[in-house]
């Protein structure tokens, strides 16, 4: 299966956007640790910034970044959202409230707890009725999202925006899934023929070969969404290359990147 990578977005600690990330991944600038900028998606009205959870703001901000980079509109664009852990902060708040009398849940928190909350806020803010799906995987979440987005682009012959995000859980859930750093990435995929790097995807048996970019902090690797950086490193370097991404316990996704 082949799709074209029209644009991408990046949001993480020391990686505030694709421009900085590209320089780090291409080896032309050092990685400088720094807190991630507070995501302020332009799609959301200021009044919604407070109500929307952190994962919604991260997902929307990184999605917008890719669209800004190539001057595309969000309306009518199909979207695929993928996250391993979903919104741990909301799960924590709900489970804590359920454990204590009166065992009640806030209605807003409840509707924000669905895994497709970012997709819902995105479609409302973008006035988009286009198809959208929300997926979960474990350590292979990014590859699962990439394969679904590429499949949609291929079968339905339309552009698809993939948004992958994972934020660290608050304690005590953090001990269960010790992701150290927040990260979000977006990829705008076009069906061929189109401009941009060509991505050839193939699912293969067995574990993925390690390919974490040396320039990046090792602890970021525990964030499933950050696997996008292995693909982006290939795009930043410019030459044809091959990346193996973990998919599930028994398989991995091979991505051949051709500029």
């Amino acid at each position: 299966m082949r799709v074209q990578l029209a644009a991408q977005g990046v949001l993480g600690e020391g990686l505030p956007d694709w421009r900085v990330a590209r320089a780090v991944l291409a080896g032309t600038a050092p990685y400088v640790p720094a807190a991630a900028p507070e995501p302020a998606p332009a799609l959301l009205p200021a009044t919604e910034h407070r109500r929307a959870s952190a994962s919604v703001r991260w997902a929307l901000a990184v999605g917008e970044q890719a669209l800004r980079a190539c001057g595309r509109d969000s309306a009518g664009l199909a979207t695929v959202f993928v996250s391993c852990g979903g919104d741990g902060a909301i799960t924590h708040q709900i489970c804590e409230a359920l454990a204590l009398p009166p065992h009640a849940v806030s209605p807003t928190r409840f509707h924000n707890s669905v895994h497709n909350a970012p997709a819902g806020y995105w479609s409302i803010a973008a006035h988009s009725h286009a198809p959208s799906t929300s997926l979960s995987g474990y350590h292979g979440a990014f590859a699962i999202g990439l394969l679904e987005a590429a499949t949609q682009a291929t079968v339905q012959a339309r552009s698809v925006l993939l948004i992958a995000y994972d934020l660290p859980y608050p304690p005590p859930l953090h001990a269960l899934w010790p992701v150290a750093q927040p990260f979000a990435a977006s990829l705008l995929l076009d069906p061929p023929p189109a401009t941009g790097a060509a991505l050839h995807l193939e699912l293969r048996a067995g574990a993925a070969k390690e390919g974490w970019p040396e320039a990046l902090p090792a602890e970021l690797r525990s964030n499933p969404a950050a696997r996008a950086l292995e693909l982006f490193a290939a795009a930043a370097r410019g030459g044809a290359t091959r990346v193996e991404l973990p998919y599930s316990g028994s398989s991995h996704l091979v991505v051949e990147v051709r500029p």
Partner: protein
Amino acid sequence: MAPLPITAIALASALGNGTGAATQAMRQGQSGLRRNDFLDSSLDTWIGRVPGLEDAPLGGGLAHFDCRSNRLALLGLRQDGFEAAVARAAARHGAQRVAVYIGTSSSGILEAELAFRQRDPATGALPATLRFSDTYNLYSVASFVQQRLGLHGPCCTVSAACASSAKAFAAAQRAIAAGLCDAAVVGGVETLCFTTLQGFAALELLSSRPCRPFDADRDGISIGEAAAFALLEKEAPGGETLALIGHGETADAFHMSTPHPQGLGAAQAMRDALQLAGLSPGDVDYLNLHGTGTRNNDAAENAAVCAVFGEQLTCSATKGWTGHTLGAAGAVEAVLTLLALRDGFLPGTANTRRTDPQFGIRLALETVPQPLRHTMSNSFGFGGSNCSLLFGRV
């Protein structure tokens, strides 16, 4: 799209184990709902509980997956000869060519809810019984189903609220069309939990009586739990078979928990499914409504259905039989819609006495024999997530 053969289906729900139990219950007018007796919940509501899950721990090599959600998934897989049908498909296509697409909205969240009651008073730590990847995480159920069936193809959890497992059918169809796999186990698994019971109570959407979809006096939902599966194959091994012939997915882009009042997104999902199948509205002869039983949801769906089909299409809502199984509802109702098609009957609308006189849709209240050619099932969820599935024969 090319019609995609459906070569096996399976169901475990409040109507009993197996599709036969569900058909029999609907023919006899026996709803699966009961007064809320879920663990220590004291909410005044009715639920569609699957009996016995409390006493059926997973054993053997998959014991680490043990939680209510995966117990229910296993119960569903064991019905209707489904596991044997998957084994035959894996032998035909190769285990790496058979995918797993499971829809759920909560997976094993119940385990986290219970673990939060047992936090260490000194450190706040959770008990070691809560395991992230095997029980808590949304991917747990897809991973469990894949390992239980010994499959090695694409594997994915779709989680888009109450449209989750309907969307799993669409994703599986695309994967087969793209050549990623030759067959797919598609399903929905959702268990009762406190988040959804208390959450819908907080939204004032839980009925204190068995839910009455599309009734003039409807006043909310009854939550249920279920596991439902279908086996989709690129080619059927023999003869005429049931088939997925269309699907449509849209976003409402209106509100996080309230549908668009005229059901614009819902209507578009139905039209997209018809277009993909190359059918006209008049070609469809039964629609399984999303039909939750809330004032707003049913009114919006009535408007959407009338806009697409007029007032001639026979519809029913089956959540009065099973309860609203949330993330599993798409697969549960796909299976009920396929049973209606296969066995030639219209499922009735349990508990509903008088269709809202303001509605234009034609609602079947009783289960009656009726030969069918093309049937549709609607699923709509929070976040404005809409999905319509269209079934026929090939």
